[in-house]
């Protein structure tokens, strides 16, 4: 059996989510763990992929692949699967990866299960675990095709180095389909955020409407600084212009899974919940005792953020400097 992982990268670094999926792939015990890298200069990332468990790395190393468009990546993956017969192809969800996975499914007439939180081998058969209907039910899903295509919810797996050696590196020469080259990126605006990026942060302090005013985000920023974390925001406050989009967590923002998530004045609407529910520990402070956030918090505090948070920041700071 063999498994192939699409490795997304940005700014010369492999994405944490994709490395988490590679870690998972390597843990399945397959002899052949392939990884696909597409973009200019990606060859230099091959050894990194090896250290997370890839035995074979396929590189389409060409600057013409730099624009983050899905269809040329479908061509590359279809070629690798066709040449090497990979039985399972795994993706960490992102705007780009979702489009690549679905395009590949249609190209190869292969089954795609998405929003998976886990993949397990049951009696020699791979079974995907998919939380559905706002996580009220876990669905076991299977495939009737080879390859199986699996798209994982962001943050499902930790990226862990396996101590694997240098992988076999192979160039992929692919002729692109006519329809794969139609779309062109003509401009890019990257939002460079300061401080730890929220996808990589171990601690996130996020603020919602319950902070009351844009100035109150200082409470979240000060607590985040004390805890060594990053600041997140709900869609409502981003839409209201209180905080930049780059900090938005939720369905239409980022999906995060830090070790600690502190929710300040966040009601816990589904839109937000799906972006942070896989956090290891969730602490919520909200004045409304009936806020849905308390249903999925490990520690819920019914109280005023303006009272509790300054004290909390002070206590954390004291403790760290002690």
């Amino acid at each position, binding site marked *: 059996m063999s498994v192939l992982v699409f490795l997304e990268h*940005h700014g010369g670094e492999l994405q944490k989510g994709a490395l988490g999926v590679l870690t998972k792939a390597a843990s399945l015990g397959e002899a052949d763990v392939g990884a696909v890298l597409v973009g200019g200069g990606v060859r230099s990332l091959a050894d990194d992929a090896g250290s997370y468990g890839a035995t074979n790395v396929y590189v389409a190393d060409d600057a013409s692949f730099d*624009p*983050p468009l*899905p*269809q040329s990546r*479908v061509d590359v993956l279809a070629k690798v699967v066709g040449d090497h017969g990979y039985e399972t192809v795994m993706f960490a969800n*992102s*705007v*780009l990866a*979702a*489009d690549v*996975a*679905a*395009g590949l*499914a*249609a190209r190869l007439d292969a*089954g*795609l299960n*998405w929003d998976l939180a886990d993949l397990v081998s049951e009696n020699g058969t791979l079974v995907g675990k998919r939380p*559905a209907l706002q996580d*009220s*039910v*876990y*669905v*076991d*899903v299977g*495939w*009737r*095709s080879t390859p199986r295509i699996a798209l994982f919810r962001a943050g499902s797996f930790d990226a862990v180095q396996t101590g694997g050696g240098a992988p076999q590196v192979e160039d992929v020469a692919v002729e692109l389909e*006519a329809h794969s080259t*139609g*779309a*062109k990126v*003509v401009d*890019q*605006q990257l*939002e460079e955020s300061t401080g730890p990026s929220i*996808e990589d942060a171990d601690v996130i302090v996020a603020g919602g409407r319950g902070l009351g005013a844009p100035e109150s985000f200082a409470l979240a920023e000060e607590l985040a600084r004390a*805890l060594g974390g990053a600041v997140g925001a709900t869609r409502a406050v981003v839409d209201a212009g209180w905080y930049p989009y*780059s900090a938005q967590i939720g*369905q*239409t923002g*980022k999906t995060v899974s830090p070790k*600690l998530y502190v929710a300040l004045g966040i009601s816990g609407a589904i839109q937000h919940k799906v972006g942070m529910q896989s956090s290891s*520990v969730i*602490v919520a402070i909200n004045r409304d*005792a009936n806020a849905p956030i308390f249903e999925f*918090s*490990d*520690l*819920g*505090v*019914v109280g*005023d953020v303006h009272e*509790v*948070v300054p004290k*909390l920041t002070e206590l*954390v700071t004291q*403790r*760290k400097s002690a």
Partner: protein
Amino acid sequence: MKIAVCVKHVPEGPARIDPGSKRLDRSGEGMLNRFDANAIEEALRIKGDGDAEIVVVSMGPASAADTLRKALAMGADRAVLVSDDAVAGSDLLATSRVLAKALEREAADLVLFGQQASDGDGAVLWAAVAERLHLPVVSQALELTLADATLRAKRQNEFGYDVIEAPLPAVVAVSDAINEPRYASLKGIMGAKKKPQDVLSLADLGLGPDDAGDAGSRTEVLALAAPPARGGAQKIEDDGNAAQAIVDFLAERRLI
């Protein structure tokens, strides 16, 4: 200029999975997937006062005709519903096969999708449909303009924004931040009843029963289970000591 908008009829109210069939229970009242309203609105905005034709395309149960009428009431010109006993239980792959066939007949210049389905949380269908139609695809479009048979879309991703150009015909999935969908006017609602609504079977599309439904699917639901519980949740009222309680809680878990 012809714009096709793919829409989904989703269950109204909290969705449930039928434990017997392991499929989403679609027996109750349905409604237009709210994210598709953004795609319809965008088609209407592009049309403006021009003479573009807007056709809404859907696959679903016969009751989905009501949902299509809502799209017509908003201002779409025509509706096509693929409804056939054999399409029930179609997975992403089978659905993309059927929709692509229906869209092929329309040969639209632009095919629009909403950003996700509110029931199955699926957010990938457009890319599979575009692949089958051999058309360029752009997703998460926040802004969309057309000029000289070329579309220009501003796409949001995790790192910022990309401005993408693609030749028409093309497939675009719009973000729900692209516009505020209009409400249907009374005149629109009255007029919708007179607009053409075609219902097509798989055979009408040149497809057989093995192309859709369970037989045409390459994935399957094996079992349903309760989600793993978040154990040991605590909830306290702030009596002035909540900050200390949080610190103790975090220290116990070695988070500070």
